[in-house]
């Protein structure tokens, strides 16, 4: 009942509650990275992990490695050369490319060379120092860098289909091994992801 007493008590209660502010943030650590819940529907850690695993598995299960080793009598030398992102999101391909390089090195069957950019620049800087006359020792020399028998090219594309409140996203990630002498594609691997994102209308 809207008596003066009730209104007064109501006001006082509200005024006293007014000061309370709680910090509502908690952080939960996933035991296995790449397993967490997907939130926005954009490219996520789950996508990167899944793509990584699929491409590595495919790469090592095809015949190009054995064919090369048999013909050349040595491990193939590989350099990641071209990464093309045709999606509308900032996707860092290095997240799964590094996993691929790591799997290649750890298998002991493939020799991985430095990527163009910061990696190769580090090598060149060290060589520059060797020829500058600033350092002693002859363990670093110029002109002995290996060339890639194969170049890795990665291409990421996406298709977005949407109406208000609902959208489907399709990602396709392609990785190819190109013979740098003949231009032949010796391996093509890909991974496809499709998601449907639904969203209730925003309220104020």
């Amino acid at each position, binding site marked *: 009942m*809207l*008596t*003066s*007493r009730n*209104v*007064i*008590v109501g*006001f*006082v209660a*509200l*005024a006293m*509650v*007014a*000061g*309370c*502010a*709680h*910090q*509502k*943030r908690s952080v939960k650590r996933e035991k296995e990275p790449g397993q967490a819940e997907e939130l*926005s*529907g*954009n490219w996520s850690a789950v996508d990167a992990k899944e793509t990584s695993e699929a491409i590595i598995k495919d790469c090592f299960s095809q015949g190009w490695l054995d064919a090369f080793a048999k013909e050349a009598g040595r491990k193939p030398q590989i350099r990641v050369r*071209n*990464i*093309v*992102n*045709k*999606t*509308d*999101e*900032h996707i860092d*391909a290095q997240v799964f490319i590094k996993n691929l390089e790591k799997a290649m090195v750890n298998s002991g069957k493939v020799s991985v060379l430095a990527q*163009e*950019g910061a990696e190769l620049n580090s090598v060149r800087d060290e060589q520059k120092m060797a020829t500058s006359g600033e350092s002693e020792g002859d363990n670093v020399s110029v002109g002995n860098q290996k060339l890639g028998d194969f170049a890795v090219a990665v*291409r990421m594309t996406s298709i977005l289909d949407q109406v*208000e*409140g609902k959208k489907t996203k399709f990602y396709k990630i392609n990785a190819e091994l190109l013979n740098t002498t003949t231009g032949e594609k010796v391996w093509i691997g890909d991974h496809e992801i499709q998601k449907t994102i639904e*969203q209730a*209308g*925003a309220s*104020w």
Partner: protein
Amino acid sequence: MNKTVIRVWITATVLLTAACGIKPDQYYQAMRPNLLSGNYQAASEYLAKNKEKVFSERDRLLYYMDQGMLTHMAKKYGESNKLLESAKQTAEDLWTESIGANAAAWVTTDNSLPYQGEDFEKVLIHFVAALNYIGLADHNAARVEARQITAKLELYNSKYTEGKNAYRDDGFARWLSGRLAETEGGNTALNDAWIDYKKAIDIYQTDYAERYKVGVPRFVVADALRVLDALGGDFKEELNQVKSRFPAVTFSKEADLKTMGQVVFIHLSGEAPAKVDKFWEARSDQDILRIAYPEFVVKPMNIVGASVELAGNVSQTEMAEPLSAIAVQNLADHMGRIQAKAIARAVAKFIAAKAAQAGGDKMAKSSNKNMAMAGALLSLAGTAAEIGNYAAEQADKRSWITLPAAVNVAQVAAPVGPQELKVTLLNAGGRPVRNVTLPVDVKAGQISFVYYRTFE
């Protein structure tokens, strides 16, 4: 004193208390002479000295943003970044709204709530931080700010469905992210930049055209064409699409720029609008109900752009970020909610005041002397409250007051070495107002950012 009397005193206090809101334009006007004369250090010292007096705990985000801007203009980049980091953290923390505080604000005033910052203000925190890192020649860190901008804008994109009237994305911030991405060098950087430029063009053509009546700046299209051309065959289709959409825009090829540098001139012009109280009144007999809501007053601006010249290359600035229009439109988006709260609040306070008067009048007739006194007080408090509510009704006038009214950009290719960028500041009629010369050290194949602030 018995419980009823105590309760009455509390009520009287509650009814008579109006949380006075901070008026950012007040301290801004006190600092303005220093700002106009370029004496940013003095303005910053003034704000620091008056911090306790002007800002309460609820307004700390404003302090961090304003002091962050002032120290940035005084070229105290490290100090500015510390303040802007506090601003970012505070905005994150305040995102969790206290239910109790919100309920109380429905009854007393929005000024009793901490200032959370508008969405576009939160994006601009990163813009000023990026300028700081550019000033410190740390492009790596500036790129981090660019990534944080992208993350924020993606969040706003997902917050508002298309078609809803809200600040969902930022053309200028997307372009800046792309430009900063380019500073890394290499094809991946150009690819990343294209993704930002593409979004920027879309946003200018949709949201910005509709909400702020601004067209796509030519320099954004030129940057998009340049990176697409440099990316080669894989992006030939996209290059042709952009060319056909903007047949009049020319661009310098990336290859031609290898032996030169690029200078990006960022001109921050004018002063952000300030909020004032607007009132509605409803009268009946002796009763009067007053409702306050905020409205932006846009400040007049004389210098609206600039023409730049470097080693014979000339370029004109174009409007990249219409901040005044963004602020005004953003407030208009929220006005429904602001006014609904203001009405509910005014009505609730009116009822309480009337109830206190009626209740007090009844108690004043009591034979118990204490009751009678308490009753008289309550009635008085009720009447005073009705008058007080009228007088004290204030809108929330908080906003980031040290922002400019607009950001304008011009780009020019430059020969390598220490150069002088000759800037002619222009009024709306295109007439020169004054000149300024800014030094810039141009490096081959790299981007140099130069920025300048005008207030008048």
